[in-house]
């Protein structure tokens, strides 16, 4: 059977570092990039005698995420120990949640070529991150950096509802958007603060029995996720086609070779000897806390997208870009409150504003002008006080200096001439100087019109209101 006769079945496990100030069980900073082992204390170093104390912000973030993903938030959940030896795991066990996670039975909607699709979320649980082993190639030594040990993580596990690599990528993007919108995660795949493993299997089309699955690791970009899943699907199909059986194993995506390779077989899999963490009582979340979190939940990317198309009448394309990040969407809405033509506003956002933000590398939070000032500029363009082209220059100046648009227009003399008398005088002058061209025009050579416009504008140093210039020329030329 060709690949097309097989149905891939994919589930994703997302690990998201939570944006708390301090670690999950101690007061150490979670800041990235500190000198190795600077952000540590006896607790996260796994010293003898230490005990974990739960950071309540982690629970708030987990509840917020659970509600956003339409999960059932459990009033009682239980901490467990996952036991294994590794130098980056100071206690010899990871404190996590196992058989009683904080959230279950959620969903995330994604877009597919066939339309919207619901991907079920099986569970969300909280856990602590491990540190990092640094292998020093020259000295043949391994060093351990425990700055990351104890940084809070959410693990979000989907049901195996994804059917190809593109859906997996869509799901991961949608998940990242939600987490970033919620302010619980920075969505950075490259730095590893947002990570994902993929469980991939294939079965003959029409079958309802899933094939043996492999877990793929080291997928630290959307591209690698797609490539690894596609490679893995064809590998598994090849194995089956050649009469073999897919083994349950953990496989690593090899970026350089573009293949997945076996890391650990099922037989080599750890027995983690999970048991309830005796140092932490079961976690209780009150109804009041859940209600408060629900009330404080921001509008999520999908809802915002829908609202931007309906409320502002924007095309889906515009709405998608404007709502991709919460600060941009918020700024758009603040501007829209001062300016009625949402499509025109959107054009300025998608064109000039985003170009400036990208070129100057400025975050929206550092913007130096107000929504009202942007609205004022657009109003000036509408009224013809300034040309659309000059308006772009004004915006650039506002962006760099934070000056008011009216002041910039005045200072730079960018105001457009809309005085009919003044324009008429120039038009008369140009027509008088170019009697031959006027003849040609009147004889039917209409292309000459552009020449007159050019001459008038040049004489007016580009400040003539183009509409008025056009109207007056046509009138004088007898059209």
């Amino acid at each position, binding site marked *: 059977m060709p690949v097309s006769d097989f149905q891939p079945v994919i589930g994703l496990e997302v690990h998201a570092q939570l944006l708390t100030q301090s670690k999950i069980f101690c007061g150490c900073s979670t800041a990235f990039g500190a000198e190795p082992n600077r952000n540590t204390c*006896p607790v996260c*170093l*796994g*010293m*003898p*005698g*230490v*005990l*974990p*104390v*739960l950071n309540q912000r982690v629970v708030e973030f987990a509840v917020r995420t659970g509600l956003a993903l339409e999960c059932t938030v459990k009033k009682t959940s239980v901490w467990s*120990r996952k*036991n294994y*030896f590794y*130098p980056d795991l*100071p*206690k*010899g*066990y990871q404190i996590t949640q196992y058989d009683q996670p904080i959230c279950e039975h959620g969903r995330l909607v994604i877009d597919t070529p066939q339309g919207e699709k619901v991907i079920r979320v099986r569970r969300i649980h909280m856990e602590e991150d491990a540190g990092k082993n640094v292998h020093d190639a020259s000295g043949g030594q*391994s060093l*351990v950096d425990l700055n990351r040990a104890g940084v809070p993580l959410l693990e979000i596990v989907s049901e195996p509802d994804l059917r190809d690599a593109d859906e997996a990528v869509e799901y991961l993007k949608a998940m990242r958007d939600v987490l970033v919108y919620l302010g619980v995660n920075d969505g950075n795949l490259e730095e590893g603060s947002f990570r994902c493993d993929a469980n991939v299997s294939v079965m003959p089309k029409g079958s309802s029995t899933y094939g043996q699955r492999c877990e793929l690791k080291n997928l630290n970009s959307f591209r690698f996720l797609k490539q690894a899943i596609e490679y893995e699907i064809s590998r598994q199909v090849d194995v089956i086609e050649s009469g073999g059986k897919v083994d349950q194993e953990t496989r690593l995506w090899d970026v350089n070779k573009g293949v997945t390779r076996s890391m650990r077989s099922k037989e080599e899999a750890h*027995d983690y*000897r*999970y*048991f309830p963490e*005796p*140092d*932490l*009582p079961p976690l209780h979340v009150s109804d009041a806390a859940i209600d408060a979190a629900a009330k404080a939940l921001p509008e999520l990317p999908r809802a915002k997208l829908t609202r931007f198309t309906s409320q502002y009448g924007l095309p889906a394309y515009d709405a998608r870009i404007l709502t991709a990040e919460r600060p941009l969407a918020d700024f758009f809405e603040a501007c829209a409150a001062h300016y009625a033509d949402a499509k025109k506003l959107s054009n300025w956002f998608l064109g000039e504003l985003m170009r400036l933000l990208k070129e100057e590398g400025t975050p929206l939070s550092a913007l130096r002008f107000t929504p009202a000032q942007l609205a004022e500029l657009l109003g000036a363009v509408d009224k013809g006080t300034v040309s659309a082209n000059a308006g772009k220059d004004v915006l650039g100046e506002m962006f760099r200096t934070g000056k008011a648009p009216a002041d910039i227009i005045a200072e730079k003399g960018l105001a457009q001439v809309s005085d009919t008398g003044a324009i008429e005088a120039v038009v008369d002058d140009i027509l008088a100087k170019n009697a031959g061209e006027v003849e040609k025009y009147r004889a039917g050579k209409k292309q000459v019109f552009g020449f007159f416009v050019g001459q008038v504008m040049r004489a007016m140093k580009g400040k003539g209101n183009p509409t008025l210039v056009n109207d007056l020329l046509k009138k004088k030329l007898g059209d």
Partner: protein
Amino acid sequence: MQLTDLTMLELAAKLAAGAVSSEEATRACLERIRQVDPKVRAFLRVDEEGALVAARASDARRKAGNPASPLDGVPVGLKDIFLTEGVETTAGSRILEGFVPPYDATVVRLLKEAGLPLVGKLNMDEFAMGSSNESSAYSLTHNPWDLTRTPGGSSGGSSAAVAAREVFGALGTDTGGSIRQPAALTNTVGLKPTYGRVSRFGIIAFASSLDQPGPMTRTVGDTAALLQLIARHDPQDATSAAVETPDYSADLEGGVRGLRLGVPREYFIEGMDPEVEASVREALREYERLGATLVDVSLPHTKYALATYYLIAPAEASSNLARYDGIRYGQRAKDARGLKELYAQTRERGFGPEVKRRIMLGTYALSAGYYDAYYLRAQKVRTLIREDFTKVFKDVDAVLSPTSPVPAFKLGEKVDDPLSMYLMDVFTLPCNLAGLPGLSVPCGFTKAGLPVGLQVLGRPFDEARLLRIARAYEREHDFFLRPAPLRG
């Protein structure tokens, strides 16, 4: 009479009156340790310098009329399981040899804040696993009442030091009887508080759901006074109870008239030492004379307690001891090649046979395929044992029993017979499984002059009543006045 013969409260009274200084008392302890510890071997480490600095600071406070606590200046010792900043702490294990903690356990901090000079670190069974102190990697501690015998365990260094009057009091920890059994074997008082009453932060963990630190002293009054300093909620221990601390001494002399005291039939068993049983039965009659009513009660799941304990405690220990991997602190196998060999050799050399036995037991009990049959079932039985007590405490105010089925046994006698060693805890460990407070108070001697202990078990957070019950008996006897002979 020597200074070291005073009880903690007697010394505190003299310190308050200015009749003696803390420095004198501390020097008396240090001198006593020099004299008798070569025979007793209770101490792993004596912090002479630290103790004297603390004593002089205490004297200055007393002089300024500003004592930090009623026990300000009273020197005490610590089981080597309590982390002490700057002072080596090993839990009796080779694997922690040379480990100097960067912080103080909460109870150590509380004692320092209360002004008590900390004289040194006391021997113990390795990682508190044992009932005779013989699993210590460092030395053999001898019972001051008969130097050929064990002082009990795992807090055997603490019980021996207090019995030999090397310190005025000590702290121990109790996971299955490790405070009460050594107290019973040395004619001292030992209290295991309710689980959560005293912070576990900074105490080297054996079995997290069972461990609890507590005082070991010569009298009930001293135990009440020492408990007063350490019983409080600790935000650094999530299992610490946010329960108000009563005044443990206020009602100490209240007597037992009108109290109903349960005598569980399962705690008087075939095979227990007849002299121990006789002493305890005599104590029960004493309570009746003092006006208490004895009530025959049953704790039917007692027979499962030992098996339950030896699944739960090793399971938790196997995980708690995983951190001793040679990577960050303590001993590391120096010639190991590769990570697996580093782990294997470090732990092979660092842990003694009893610790290895329990790590293997616990690892097995938690393994995939066995978890339900062992660990999970043990937790269910644990619930039944707790319910036994809950039912009984609806009818009685406390439960009385022997602390240990036998008096102090010979060193070496049970070393090669772990099962018979485990049986030493048969009366003490149900209390840990149920999270209840338990206390051992001296109740006489065998003909050979070996101490016998009476165990008092109570409702959660009912330590004050346990102390009052123990004190009622102590008041009628002078066992605590008798000095240990320090002979073999």
